[in-house]
């Protein structure tokens, strides 16, 4: 019963949030203290492509987030796989993984910008992707920690004992054990990149426009409709991914 009530209240909260954003996106004359618009304006839907570059911002955000998620998750998996077999010093490993979080994001961004200016990458997608990977890669490495425990080591030893090749061990033992957390890691790193504002603004130098930047601009310009559409576009993927991979989220969230 308690679980049912929690699910219903959470769903209602999310639904109210979406409804509120939809009302402010499609309603005209919605101003304080009124809660309901005077009239509805659906013309915005047909103009959405031309106004405020929402589509291009969406495409940019999607491209950056996908690149960051895939690169971070696969690189983190590779780093973990190598350290699983080579067994380097644990404390040194942890220090390296947590190092980016010891540095303030703004300091990291400034340092990266100087580097990217020298490399000629400033204001490009590459700069933003590389900058975000500096944050998401250690995060993915830490998140994937749950895969590489003593239990997996024992199973791998058992596989070696039965004469399995390295490829068979990867395919039959490591991959099934890692699959769930790799999906979770991809989703989480995707969302970190998707929601990022500071690095995009700083490293993009105004040349790369993502959804978070569009939302910020719309709020500055008091364009309620555009801001609401941008907000819906920003939060929608998170909810969709959560729904699609509900089981993995719940299982892994309780096991971490």
């Amino acid at each position, binding site marked *: 019963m308690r679980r049912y009530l929690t699910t219903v209240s959470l769903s209602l909260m999310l639904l109210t949030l979406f409804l509120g954003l939809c009302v402010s996106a499609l309603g005209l004359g919605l101003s304080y203290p009124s809660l309901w618009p005077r009239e509805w304006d659906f013309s915005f839907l047909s103009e959405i492509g031309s106004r405020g570059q929402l589509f291009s911002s969406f495409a940019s955000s999607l491209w950056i987030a996908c690149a960051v998620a895939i690169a971070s998750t696969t690189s983190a998996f590779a780093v973990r796989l190598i350290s699983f077999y080579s067994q380097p010093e644990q404390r040194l490993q942890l220090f390296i993984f947590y190092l980016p979080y010891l540095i303030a994001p703004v300091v990291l961004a400034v340092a990266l910008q100087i580097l990217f200016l020298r490399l000629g990458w400033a204001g490009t997608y590459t700069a933003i992707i590389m900058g975000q990977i500096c944050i998401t890669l250690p995060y993915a490495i830490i998140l994937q920690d749950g895969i590489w425990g003593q*239990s997996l080591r*024992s*199973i791998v*030893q*058992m596989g070696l*004992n*039965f*004469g399995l090749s390295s490829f068979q061990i990867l395919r039959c033992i490591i991959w*099934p054990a890692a699959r769930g957390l790799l999906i979770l890691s991809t989703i989480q790193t995707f969302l970190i990149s998707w929601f990022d504002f500071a690095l995009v603004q700083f490293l993009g130098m105004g040349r790369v426009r993502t959804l978070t930047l569009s939302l910020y601009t719309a709020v500055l310009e008091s364009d309620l409709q555009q801001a609401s559409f941008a907000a819906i576009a920003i939060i929608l993927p998170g909810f969709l991914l959560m729904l699609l991979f509900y089981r993995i989220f719940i299982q892994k969230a309780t096991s971490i």
Partner: protein
Amino acid sequence: MNHLEVRGVGKTFGKEAVLKGIHFELPFGKSLAILGPSGVGKSTLLKILCGMEEADTGRILLNGNPVENWPIAKRKMIYLHQHPVLLPHLNVAQNILFSLKATEWPEAKKQDQLHYWLEQTGLKGHESKLPNQLSGGQKQRVALARAMIFEPEIILMDEPFHALDHYLKEQLMEELKALFLREKMSSIIVTHDPQEALKWADHFAWLSEEGLVQYKDQEAFIADPKTGVHRQINFWNQYQKS
């Protein structure tokens, strides 16, 4: 000729010598119990035998052949962990057949062997269960069936009954002992429990920081005060008298 002979095996981790000049012999179809305090390298010794760890010194002879340079699988010495290591996403039958992944057996032979070992280990009817649906004893049987189907030379058991409750431990030990006798399977068991050793093994050894002592018979093992067996027997005799 002995099934297994270990001559002067030594292992050092960093500056610490864990095993020094280990010698022992295991005849065909017999079982050897290795006892000793914690941290003297009992598990390391088993891992060296099956090839998971490399010895720094010494020789290991299987059927008279030195196996130090053989790949792990060729040695056919299967190591059973203290906690049965099963693949959580595979059912009982798939877990048992997992050990044959690297072999080129025809499917019919695999299925025949699977049914035989399911029968022998009392797992008939549990084939499609996942590991999380099994009891501790059943999990240990699956691990054993998976090892036996591989047709091993020797089974190496690292405190296999440690995690089980008393009654289950007694029952499983009796069943497995009978199975090992039937199959004439050579085995080495590492344990802390002298009673477990006495029930299971035909040969006994004591491993300590000074090295390994193999007793010539059961009486010698019981009589040695450092094994603690004599003390336990005296305690029970006095308890019964009182």
